[in-house]
């Protein structure tokens, strides 16, 4: 016990990190991307809040999900948004998705020896109009993928996605192949099922679910408007369209 005396050796410690739980997930389609996260924020066995968003709109066609240490996550999103604003002022256009991905890598690696304790998943529409997902580790190593889960329930959700999105361990019917991209309605069902499953078995997941959907300009939103609790958050006409779907998850 540190008591300020010089009689015996003393040790003091400060841990600058904590794990705030929660899970995020993103799936890319042919002409859309779905980025989702639960809204519970916890520390140990305590729930700090039932609504702390982890998924953020960056541009008209880019969404960033952050999971891990919430304070680092919020600060990181703030700094990414700031860099994107500077880019807009310099170039009079939004930064393309693959450039945002590279920017995030450099910003994370800049903190190589005192990292943001955050797992990032970036989703949106690429310049060629295809849906894209980029996933990062805390020091900036990244990869473009079709789907990725991260956070507290990654180990529960990722193998389920391997099976349902990549059709791993499944054989296509004779003379047929597995689709490389699923329709939006199937993807949304898989996302919602993933989170209800994770909520059932993981104490750090639950309360609420926030799903961002980005659909390529000129492509049909595939019946999205008729879905319950959907809100369009597109800011300008003649751009890619963005929607938010909010659902309740179990609170126990």
């Amino acid at each position, binding site marked *: *016990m540190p*008591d300020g005396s010089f009689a015996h*050796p003393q040790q003091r410690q400060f841990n600058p990190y904590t794990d705030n739980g929660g899970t995020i997930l993103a799936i890319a389609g042919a002409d859309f991307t779905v980025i989702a996260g639960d809204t519970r924020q916890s520390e140990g066995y305590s729930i700090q809040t039932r609504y702390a968003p982890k998924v953020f709109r960056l541009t008209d066609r880019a969404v960033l999900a952050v999971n891990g240490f919430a304070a680092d996550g919020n600060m990181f999103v703030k700094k990414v948004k700031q860099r994107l604003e500077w880019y807009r002022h310099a170039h009079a256009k939004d930064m393309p998705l693959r450039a945002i991905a590279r920017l995030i890598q450099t910003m994370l690696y800049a903190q190589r020896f005192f990292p943001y304790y955050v797992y990032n998943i970036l989703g949106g529409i690429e310049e060629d109009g295809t849906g894209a997902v980029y996933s990062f580790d805390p020091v900036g190593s990244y990869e473009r993928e079709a789907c990725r889960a991260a956070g507290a*329930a990654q*180990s*529960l*959700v*990722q*193998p*389920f996605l*391997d*099976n*349902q999105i990549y059709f*791993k*361990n*499944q054989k296509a019917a004779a003379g047929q192949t597995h689709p490389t991209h699923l329709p939006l309605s199937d993807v949304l069902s898989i996302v919602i*099922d*993933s989170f209800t*499953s*994770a909520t*059932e*078995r993981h104490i750090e997941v639950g309360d609420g679910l926030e799903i961002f959907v980005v659909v390529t300009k000129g492509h049909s939103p595939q019946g999205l408007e008729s879905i319950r609790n959907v809100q369009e958050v597109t800011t300008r006409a003649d751009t890619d369209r963005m929607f938010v779907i909010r659902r309740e998850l179990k609170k126990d």
Partner: protein
Amino acid sequence: MEEALEQPQLRVFLHPLLHPALLPVSYPRDIRPTWSSIMEYNGGSVIAMVGKDCVAIASDLRLGNQALGISSNFTKIFPMTNRIFLGLPGLATDVTTLKETFRYRVNMYTIKEEREIEPETFAHLVSSTLYERRFGPYFIEPVMAGLQKAADGSLKPYIAATDLIGCLNFAKDFVVAGTASSKLFGVAEGLWEPDLGPEDLFETISQTLLNAVDRDAYSGWGAEVYVLTKDKVIKRTLKGRMD
């Protein structure tokens, strides 16, 4: 003010040669094997599921020495009676010991009672056998599946699992254990549904196991699946990823 700087820590050692008295003074405390690493020493996973008038139990076939794969035909599921199957994921040496212990105890039960043991009774036998070793446990988390004879003579699906000291978990849907347990929970929670017939149950448990162990470095290397119905037991050996 005097206070102990270091608390003595309870640790279980993997090998007698790692006894503190035999360790060099400089051996770093933190790299000694601990509780959790014993459960992950050989790797392996088991899952059991309930269906409509049927049950299934499945396991991987890997035996490892930490990250090194040793065998791809190490079976972890054993028949206890014609309608009870027991899965034993955990420390491989204890798999062998417990398999023989339960064979002995089930035989003794059969002789004394002059009838076959029922799954529910067997689950309590497993529980009490493990609790006998409460303070020096076998490093096994058993999973069992069986068909229980009801009062009207029909057979009712029964699954159960325990922790390594015998705390029973009698679930209505599915039970999992082993190094891929969190992955098994995630996939099973997504794929399982009530009242699956034998063939659908086989597909569900196989997909759950295969996709879970593919994300676990300590499990995999093939799998075997048992489906128990009222008139037959189907055993299938599955090919899986071998990496």
